């Protein structure tokens, strides 16, 4: 909590951080209430007075961003799509960093054989081609939000692990670690009560970048046609447009989801960078 407060305070101090935080807050708001605000259902089809499907309608007062080939309201779909984007992004980022921080802590702290085995494993994951591996995994496990989160977590923890490990390598040599041990702290105490608080800033930076990455990756998965078929996400809207071959006739169908992704991810990047700029010099000082 204290950490989160400090995080927000640091980001809030920079102008770009403040703006990005507001934008990200808006995305969170849409994720929570978007479906309530949406004038139509995610897959609801619109019919005109004559009872015909409103296909590929241009933006109008009824359909702010026009409709799709199947008569669905694009604006409503964008609102509905915020929730899966945030849920997938946040859960993947948290899971990724949870794995990465723990691997980094354990490898860096215990060193020796534990370290070399864990780092070898990390190297192997580092060599995995990111998107291709996720696709292969999804083709085998089936496509749902949960398998997508799981697949992304499996390939994304590796970079956090490396960064955390190298920080732990220098922290564990510091005297406060010896001091804690000499007061009778166990390895777990030292690892999670003394060292872990000192790598939390890295974990927070890791969360922001993982969040940004997973939103883009989820969209790419959706675009390649491996997304959750039951969920309307921004990636899947683009995929529908692409697969229907109608996207070049209906820019209003393709543009909004891409812009939504761009706005969300850009805000996350800027939040992360505002924090990083303050915290990185501090972390370097510890080495």
């Amino acid at each position: 909590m204290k950490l989160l407060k400090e995080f927000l305070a640091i980001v809030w101090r920079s102008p770009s951080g403040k703006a990005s935080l507001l934008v990200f807050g808006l995305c969170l708001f849409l994720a929570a209430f978007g479906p309530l605000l949406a004038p139509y259902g995610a897959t609801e089809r619109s019919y005109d007075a004559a009872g015909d499907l409103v296909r590929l309608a241009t933006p109008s007062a009824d359909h702010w961003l026009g409709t799709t080939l199947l008569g669905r309201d694009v604006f409503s779909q964008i609102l509905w799509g915020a929730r899966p984007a945030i849920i997938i992004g946040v859960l993947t980022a948290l899971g990724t960093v949870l794995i990465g921080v723990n691997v980094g802590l354990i490898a860096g702290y215990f060193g020796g054989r534990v370290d070399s085995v864990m780092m070898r494993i990390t190297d192997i994951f580092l060599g995995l081609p990111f998107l291709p591996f996720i696709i292969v995994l999804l083709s085998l496990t089936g496509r749902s939000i949960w398998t997508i989160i799981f697949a992304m977590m499996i390939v994304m923890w590796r970079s956090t692990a490396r960064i955390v490990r190298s920080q732990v390598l220098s922290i564990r040599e510091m005297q406060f670690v010896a001091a804690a041990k000499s007061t009778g702290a166990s390895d777990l105490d030292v690892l999670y009560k003394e060292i872990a608080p000192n790598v939390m800033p890295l974990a927070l930076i890791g969360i922001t970048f993982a969040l940004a990455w997973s939103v883009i990756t989820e969209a790419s998965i959706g675009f390649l046609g491996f997304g959750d078929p039951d969920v309307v996400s921004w990636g899947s809207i683009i995929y529908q447009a692409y697969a229907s071959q109608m996207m070049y006739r209906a820019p209003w169908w393709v543009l909004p989801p891409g812009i939504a992704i761009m706005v969300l991810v850009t805000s996350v990047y800027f939040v992360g960078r505002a924090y990083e700029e303050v915290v990185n010099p501090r972390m370097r000082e510890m080495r």
Partner: protein
Amino acid sequence: MIEVENLCKHYATETGLASLLTGNRKPPVRAVDGVGFRVTNGEVLGLVGESGCGKSTLMRTLCGLEKPTSGAIRFAGQDSHSLQSADRKAFHKLVQMVFQDPYGSLNPQHTVGDIVSRPLIYQKAGLNRDELKSRAIRVLEEAGLKPAADFLDKYPHQLSGGQRQRVCIARAIVLEPELLIADEPISMLDVSIKWGIIRLLKSLVKDRNLAMIYVTHDLASVTSICDSLAIMYLGRIVECGSTRSVIANPQHPYTRILLTATPSVDPDARRQPVRIVGGIPNAIDIPSGCRFHPRCPEAIGACRHTDPEPVVSGNHSAACHLPKRETPKQEYEQETVIR
């Protein structure tokens, strides 16, 4: 009371697979190589030596951060090894350490209150928050941080060097140890606050009836706090005795060299500078015979092949083939008592 007997701490230099397979083991680093001494409660032992002589390893071994290779450490007659294997946590309650670096030895992410009460949590003392807080306040005030309530929520980076070292001391006494080890506690502080810390340590020893080991490479500060001195060279204690007799009547050539290297407060005191040749040899390749002989200005033939046994006279002992016996000089005493 703590007794140390023939304590050794050796480090293997190579543990790689290649050396295991070929059996081509390099000799170990003999950081601590047969050390023995005793400290009673209410007494301060000064441990003096150059950097690299094994002081820090000895201290880390004493407070349980390292396992001794051989030898014994006894607290009130009980062997520390059996104490540690029975209950490692309880052992740590007996010995606490004040580290050299007041900047690195406090966790930057914890508040002063956290730092001082953490040991009780690690010891699973079973105290609730209020009890932890009152214990923290008590030791902080004892360490001279008054009013302690003002310091509880501060972070280390908000404190001065002297205040930090007082926090370190408060942390060390919160577990109420029998033995306090102070590893060069003032070497990184400003001159103006050094004596405050020394006074604090002295009063703690008296009030709490602690045994204390005061480690330093600087002879100037030892006379005002230590009751006895042990001079360490290359993993061994070469001379040991009451502070007064070691300073006034140094037996070992190495001690004499250290003494002449110490700047004197008295401008009239003239000491013959003794020249010392070469640097401290490394602890892998320890010289044969007396380990000091390659640098000793007074070495004789026997020094080269026979390791000298400690020669004891009264409570003063020195491991040298040619101990110098002189009557104590009075002026030394005056010169070294600083206040």
